[in-house]
């Protein structure tokens, strides 16, 4: 097993035919982090179906976000960051695909380059020198100050998970008191979009 690896899109499977995942890939015992996006019917209980299936089957979920993205067609998008061996990731996708209200399952990590962003609100209680230090970090990370009192700041930072982690780590010695994160929103780079072809 060992540490979790970031999967690179160059490692995407070269399918012999649809549904075929090369055996060597499935037998790779390393743990990879994947970002999976689902298009689902925005109906009551759909999030419970997804999260219940994931917890019931013991998959490892790092982040799960959901929001409606098309009001007319009642579609929501769920973004899941998960890690597991290739075999487990394939299972997660297959199990998600089995849920009746799921339109589409996309493995953004496998399909090509993608952007994944999250937003964090970070509250730091500090006075004196720490304030200047916090503001400097804020500038470096292109975070913004969304609330300020003589004793505190609330920063808003947006970026990939690693960047948000790094910012929070920097705030820790400066008086970090609270963090609120959104979890990731992710999307593939390039022109292709999955709203177009799903109906």
């Amino acid at each position: 097993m060992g540490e979790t690896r970031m999967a690179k899109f160059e490692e995407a499977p070269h399918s012999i035919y649809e549904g075929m995942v090369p055996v060597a890939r499935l037998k790779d015992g390393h743990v990879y982090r994947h970002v999976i996006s689902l298009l689902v019917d925005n109906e009551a209980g759909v999030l419970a179906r997804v999260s219940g299936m994931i917890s019931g089957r013991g998959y490892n979920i790092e982040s799960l976000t959901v929001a409606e993205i098309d009001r007319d067609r009642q579609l929501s998008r769920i973004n899941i960051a998960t890690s597991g061996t290739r075999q487990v990731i394939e299972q997660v996708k297959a199990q998600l695909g089995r849920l009746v209200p799921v339109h589409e399952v996309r493995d953004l990590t496998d399909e090509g380059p993608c952007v994944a962003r999250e937003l964090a609100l970070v509250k730091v209680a500090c006075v004196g020198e720490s304030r200047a230090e916090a503001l400097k970090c804020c500038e470096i990370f292109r975070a913004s100050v969304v609330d300020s009192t003589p004793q505190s700041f609330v920063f808003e930072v947006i970026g990939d998970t690693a960047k948000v982690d790094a910012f929070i780590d920097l705030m820790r010695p400066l008086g970090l008191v609270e963090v609120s994160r959104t979890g990731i929103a992710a999307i593939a780079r390039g022109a292709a979009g999955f709203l177009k072809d799903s109906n």
Partner: protein
Amino acid sequence: MAARAAALKAEDHPEEFMSGARLILKALEDQGVEVVFGYPGGAVLPIYDELFKQNRIRHILVRHEQAAVHAAEGYARSTGKVGCVLVTSGPGATNAVTGLTDALMDSTPIVCLTGQVPTHLIGNDAFQEADTIGITRPCTKHNYLVRDAEQLARVIHEAFHVARTGRPGPVVVDIPKDVSMGQGRYAPPLQSASAHKTYRPRTAPDPRAIREAVALMARAKRPVFYTGGGVINSGARAVAALRELLALTGFPITSTLMGLGAYPADQDQWLGMVGMHGTFEANLAMHGCDLMIAVGARFDDRVTGNLALFSPGSRKIHIDIDPSSINKNVVVDVPVVADCGEALEALVAAWKAETAPRPGLAAWWRQVAEWRGRDCLHYEQKGPVIKPQHAIQRLFEIAKDRDPFICTEVGQHQMWAAQFCGFTRANRWITSGGLGTMGFGLPAAIGAQIAHPDALVIDIAGEASALMNIQELSTAVQHKAAVKLFIINNQYMGMVRQWQEMLHGARYAHSYTEALPDFVKLAEAFGCAGLRVSDPARLDGTIREMLEIPGPVVCEVAVDPAENCFPMIPSGKAHNEMILSAQDAAAKRITGEGLALV
């Protein structure tokens, strides 16, 4: 809100509207439902009232909602149709949960209508309220809460579509009382399978996968077919195509517990069942093959034993309609996501067209013959006590000309039934495989008997399992379901005792079935005939007597309490580490990680 809007319109156009309960019945009729297994209660009274007013759908009153679902499973599995269940809210729905889980594990198509408290009370801890949707979400293929009578017909049609197609399974439709009492318009069934906006299971195999599979088959020197319940679920076409493919290839075949009957057990190519209590030849063929062709089977742990040691030298083809079954436990070389029937037909056609020279299979068959020579199911019937295997073997021998449906409970008797009933037809074997539900067999037998009133339906039971849904004898009597409850009484939860003997130093903690009822008197109390036999010389006569009595019969067979079920692959072991007999068991103690497995 929506319900109120519909009600207003209903006043303007009364001719287009009907009550929710009437909509439900009409939808069931249009789905071809002939029988509903159910139990009434407050939340479903409007639906029962509608049942009362019509004659097209027959209602079978059970004595416990768990049994309603098992009966519907027996109905479904003996006919290939969707089984239909109707239960009330709260305790009615929670009682059904075991049955639903059973149907999910064994991919049995069920539509279960559950009553619910009125919508305005949902979430208020109302009388007989349970979060049925929440409770049944993980034990159904899908479930629906209908909040508006206008949606009832559409949802019920969709429920049948989802239950029946793809990998079949149970679907719950939860119906609040104000919805079944409300007004709505009817919607006809879905016109085509592709009409659903998200749910469209793939049934046609990828031709490239078929080509690759046949190329592997043509080169194989030690091939074996490993088939499962998916072939039976797929239906008569799949069974016919499987038999043709076996005739064409001449390969040996084994099957899971769920797949018995798809290929006839009286054929030379049949190796017997695979798995924990499978035959020596089947398990060693799986272990030693160079090509495994899995069809509608899911590499369950009862089949594979220790995964790391499972069939180490083989390439694997896996045909399954459920993509999540593929590469779940065992990584395969050629996945074929398709309906078993369509895939098998494609394989037949491709095999006929394949011209590559094929290696002979003589050496492989010689090896199989050697394994068969071990006669792994051998037992000795001697002395004054009936051996359980003998009772089951004699039962099947005497009954088989009548093309019986055999149901079972769970335990040793179930495994012996699987080993000793040589099924030659599909849909004749109805057992709880995935969930292993004691109490399944009697209601399942009643369901099968309701579907086939003139057939011989037998539940091979253990004395402990039989007591788990024994109240259903009353159902059998009321509905004139002439099931034969054949109880193998070994005075133990035999399978539990066997594991305690082998794994826990023969400390038989609570596995002795004490204070058993007098089964003959019990049968009579229910209005059934009761028989008992303990003398081997009288066994055949008693079986014949049981078969000749026209109504439901309970026949108790007192058997050797110490008999164990072999062969057995102990948990954590590989197929080639089978225990063949009691003497063998002593030599192969189960230790280490195996102890923690189930």
